[in-house]
């Protein structure tokens, strides 16, 4: 199941959980894969050099004439294999780099997509509106919001920076009752999983009056 399909059919809890931060699963998997290849390859070479596969092998030269000759015997095949391997590496490497460098998607919210009516709310607009509401709460020094996910399964990520004197319980309550509920009511019927991240503002900051 592709990532897209998986997240679309996933339940709301799962979508909310994965909205907390950008997924690093691909990077991690590829790093582990590459690491295993290097680890195993390096270990095997070291073992061979230390004579684990027979002292005869260890005395052979690195550029073994047997190997070189067998490659020479099949020039076309070995070249084609080498070229294919190279192309594969290029494709894999570029795909990995591109995926890793791509900024996280900010989907728009589609509220209606019938034959005669389409309603789309710009993702940035929705996120800014939510962030504005969150930042006005007592105990919140700063707030940022962002639409994450993709068009078929959007989610909302809200980050709030709490002041020193903030009452965490109260902030969470207000966030849920005012900000999140407001967003869900305004953007109905789009189901909107929400991930809230709590941070602490630098010591000494206060939630002053908002300057418009």
């Amino acid at each position: 199941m592709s990532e897209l399909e998986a997240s679309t059919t996933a339940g709301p809890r799962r979508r909310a959980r994965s909205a907390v931060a950008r997924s690093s699963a691909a990077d991690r998997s590829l790093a582990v894969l590459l690491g295993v290849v290097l680890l195993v390859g390096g270990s095997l070479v070291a073992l061979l050099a230390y004579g684990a596969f027979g002292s005869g092998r260890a005395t052979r030269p690195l550029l073994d004439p047997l190997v070189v000759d067998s490659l020479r015997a099949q020039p076309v095949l070995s070249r084609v294999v080498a070229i294919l391997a190279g192309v594969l590496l290029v494709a894999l490497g570029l795909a990995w780099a591109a995926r890793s460098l791509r900024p996280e998607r900010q989907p728009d919210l589609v509220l209606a997509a019938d034959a005669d009516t389409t309603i789309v709310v710009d993702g940035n607009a929705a996120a800014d509106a939510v962030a504005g509401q969150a930042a006005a709460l007592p105990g919140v020094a700063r707030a940022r919001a962002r639409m994450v996910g993709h068009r078929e399964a959007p989610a909302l990520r809200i980050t709030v920076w709490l002041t020193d004197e903030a009452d965490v319980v109260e902030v969470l309550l207000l966030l849920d009752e005012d900000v999140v509920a407001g967003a869900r009511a305004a953007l109905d019927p789009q189901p909107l999983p929400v991930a809230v991240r709590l941070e602490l503002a630098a010591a000494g900051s206060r939630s002053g009056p908002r300057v418009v």
Partner: protein
Amino acid sequence: MRVLLRILAPVLGLGLAAVGAVLVAEVVAAWVWSAGPGLLVPWSAWRAAVEDIRWREPAVPLAALAVAVLGLLLVLLGLLARRNDIVLIGRGVDTTVTTSPRVLARLVGRRVRAADAVAAASITATARKVHVRAQGRDRAGPGLRETVHVEVDGVLDELSLARRPRVTVTVQESRTVSELASSPFNTAASANAGDERSEEFT
């Protein structure tokens, strides 16, 4: 860890692509123009240098071990660069509230230091454990540990964490509060008060 991986990932990707590109270029060049010094990379010079080396020579296993260690580091990076969020119980099934160990440590520290009996405190927090080193003022005595426990439990109750960390409290009598060092692979965060409170009264 996650930051390191984020930076490293495109670098590794581009590195792999570069290796592949050089391979393709060199093989094609050698094929088309046969036997030449090498298009992008002086591979025939390298080959001449490598030709006489045997597997057994010390340089080979050393280089191989270096590569293996690099691979091991990459594997560890991949396995350890996980998010270490602390999950709070959110209202509703489609709302998740999380915070970081650092924030938890600061919240606990704020509450502990606000207690009268506490002169200074140092907190280390992870999703599983909260460790408080508290220094009492004026020889507060055995009740100090109890007091700190109560304060910490209060914070944890309020936050309604999905998984309640184990709380350990150590009390010290000495004037200096040493900073807890975090071990390299520990996802702990520590918030150190220093001697802020004791300064108020001197």
